[in-house]
């Protein structure tokens, strides 16, 4: 029995639908409706906001802005090729010769960025269904999520403002694709998301009366639960440190953890599709190829991890016996760990702040490394054009802060300072560290360089871990809150900052005992729970997580 009314714009107390777009007079409504469908299903499957590109879909299926299309061919394209984000290839009405294959050496402005493979949401085969029975459509919308459809509305449809649409004429206009985000049986209407801007209907959403009989005979396309496989690029702000929520496992959301034991970095994973949630050891981080086995038994401290847009590779940075930070990566194509390079200041301490930033595509690697004098240095490595330094070269970008207690995963590529989508190199880097005065200090890198924003807390004697989560963001564009966990005197403090309003830092919880430092923080797909990995004073690693009832200790690892 389907619910009498469903509205995915606000269901279960949360928003699930991405922002309203504008197809800019093109004939690509079919791509906009299908892209909106993929974005909604990623949000529902993974509680993750994701922005996808209608341009990638239009040109990927071999069409232009003036071409009509079909939701079926669009979904088939995503099943075969994935769907990239607007920074990989944006929507535009200009003609483009395009292939969804990576462009490799022959990069032109008509090609996707070379890292398309690492920044696409993928769909499982047979991910979709087509329904025509209105009762089944409502069942799908209630039990699974929104559906895309194509209808032939009368010519007055484009002028809907407020209210429930009933045609005033039988003269038909062009066929048009929409995303059906809900229905209301008492009011006898469907709720649809259009793609002609926010001036149509109520901020881009409209109500269509059952009496109009427009949607009832139409085919609806839906994606089945658990069929979306999001890329690490859309998760990048929601995690930091040694823990990654990747796309392995039956539910495509396993945890991957990298911890130091002895002089090695160990790779662990947690299978998240089973209720047992057991942690399993994969093995040491070292190459299986004897000719590449150049790094092991050299880790002096824990690793900072990134799952990059290089084909979803794992990238690790850790303090090496060679006196600098070492960068190594897991090549998903070969299945081997490979050596990157040594970089950064001499005599580093602690864990690096390490992210893949918005500059270029693939985005640059950015690291903040603290040396034994307490100076935090910013180092970068270009991964793409424009090359101001030689490819593969890490280079020193100056000092972030002094009197820093230790290095930690406190660096974030924020949405703050971003001008919209595509992000295209905009957005600020933020870094939070503990300094010798016992306070946590918050720094920002904008066009004028690193500046001190504020300080908060007291007694901090370890490096914090920082993420930009989704609390505070109503859609994929909104800026989420900063969330920070830090060990203070053996306990863990959780702090947050309301970024949309540039609010102050607020401490929300103190918990745990015997904790040395926090080495990882993520906002997970488990109802957007916060999850941390701590290193206890006895050297044991432990998992903690927070749901609506507060923080809970998980198992030791």
């Amino acid at each position, binding site marked *: 029995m389907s619910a009498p009314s469903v509205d995915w714009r606000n269901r279960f107390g949360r928003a699930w639908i991405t922002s309203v777009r504008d197809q800019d007079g093109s004939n690509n409504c079919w791509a906009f409706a299908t892209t909106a469908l993929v974005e909604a299903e990623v949000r529902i499957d993974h509680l993750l906001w994701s922005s996808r590109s209608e341009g990638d879909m239009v040109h990927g299926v071999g069409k232009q802005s003036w071409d009509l299309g079909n939701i079926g061919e669009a*979904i088939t394209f995503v099943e075969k090729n994935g769907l990239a984000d607007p920074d990989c290839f944006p929507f535009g009405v200009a003609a483009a010769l395009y292939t969804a294959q990576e462009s490799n050496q022959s990069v032109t402005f008509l090609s996707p960025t070379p890292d398309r493979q690492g920044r696409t949401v993928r769909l499982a085969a047979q991910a979709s269904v087509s329904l025509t*029975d209105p009762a089944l459509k409502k069942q799908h919308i209630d039990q699974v999520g929104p559906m895309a459809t194509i209808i032939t509305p009368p010519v007055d449809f484009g*002028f809907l403002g407020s209210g429930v649409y*009933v045609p005033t004429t039988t003269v038909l206009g*062009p066929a048009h694709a929409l995303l059906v985000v809900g229905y209301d049986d008492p009011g006898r209407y469907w709720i649809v998301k259009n793609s002609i801007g926010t001036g149509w209907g109520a901020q881009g959403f409209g109500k269509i009366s059952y009496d109009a009989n427009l949607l009832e005979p139409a085919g*609806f396309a839906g994606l089945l639960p658990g069929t979306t496989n999001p890329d690490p690029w859309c998760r990048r702000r929601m995690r930091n440190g040694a823990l990654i929520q990747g796309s392995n496992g039956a539910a495509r959301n396993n945890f991957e953890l990298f911890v130091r034991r002895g002089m090695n970095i160990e790779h662990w994973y947690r299978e998240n599709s089973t209720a047992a949630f057991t942690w399993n050891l994969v093995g040491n981080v070292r190459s299986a190829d004897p000719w590449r086995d150049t790094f092991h038994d050299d880790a002096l401290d824990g690793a900072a991890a990134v799952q990059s847009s290089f084909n979803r590779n794992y990238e690790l940075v850790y303090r090496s016996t060679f006196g600098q930070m070492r960068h190594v990566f897991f090549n998903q194509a070969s299945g081997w760990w490979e050596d990157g390079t040594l970089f950064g200041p001499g005599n580093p301490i602690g864990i690096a702040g390490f992210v893949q930033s918005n500059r270029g595509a693939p985005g640059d690697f950015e690291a903040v490394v603290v040396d034994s004098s307490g100076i935090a240095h910013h180092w970068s490595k270009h991964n793409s054009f424009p090359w101001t330094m030689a490819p593969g070269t890490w280079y020193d970008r100056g000092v972030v802060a002094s009197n820093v207690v230790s290095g930690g995963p406190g660096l974030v590529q924020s949405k703050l300072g971003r001008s919209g989508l595509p992000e295209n190199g905009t957005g600020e880097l933020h870094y939070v560290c503990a300094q010798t005065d016992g306070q946590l200090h918050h720094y920002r890198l904008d066009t004028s360089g690193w500046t001190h924003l504020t300080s908060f807390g007291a007694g901090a004697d370890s490096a914090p871990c920082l993420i930009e989560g989704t609390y505070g963001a109503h859609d994929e564009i909104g800026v989420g809150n900063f969330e920070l966990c830090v060990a203070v005197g053996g306990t863990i403090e959780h702090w947050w900052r309301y970024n949309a309003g540039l609010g102050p830092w607020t401490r*929300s919880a103190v918990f745990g005992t015997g904790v040395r430092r926090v080495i990882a923080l993520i906002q997970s797909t*488990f109802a957007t729970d916060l999850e941390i990995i701590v290193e206890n004073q006895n050297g044991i690693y432990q998992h903690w997580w927070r749901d*609506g009832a507060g923080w809970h200790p998980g198992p030791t690892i």
Partner: protein
Amino acid sequence: MEDGERTTQPATIGELRQRLRSLGEPWTVPARFSDDDPVPDLPPQPVDPGHIKGLRAVNTREEFDAILRGAPPANPFLAARWRELGAAVPGTAEGTGTPEPGQDVPEWGVG
């Protein structure tokens, strides 16, 4: 207005507004359109009723239920909805069970 007049197209937004008033239909035209704006005479592109081409067509509740049984949601709120409907959903929430929809912290407002 006679229902037969629905077979004609209003030429302008002013005529559309007049028609909405006379029919008593429950919607309005945004104020940004002036009464003199034309309602464009667009060539119709009718869609054949029926399934979306290229996708798996499902016609019966039995068939659809069987497909859904093989694809339980990981989303804890949807899983709770499925359980409300009597479906068996594997527990994939952290802790001892799936949180109730209202149990989690709000997604916006507080950290």
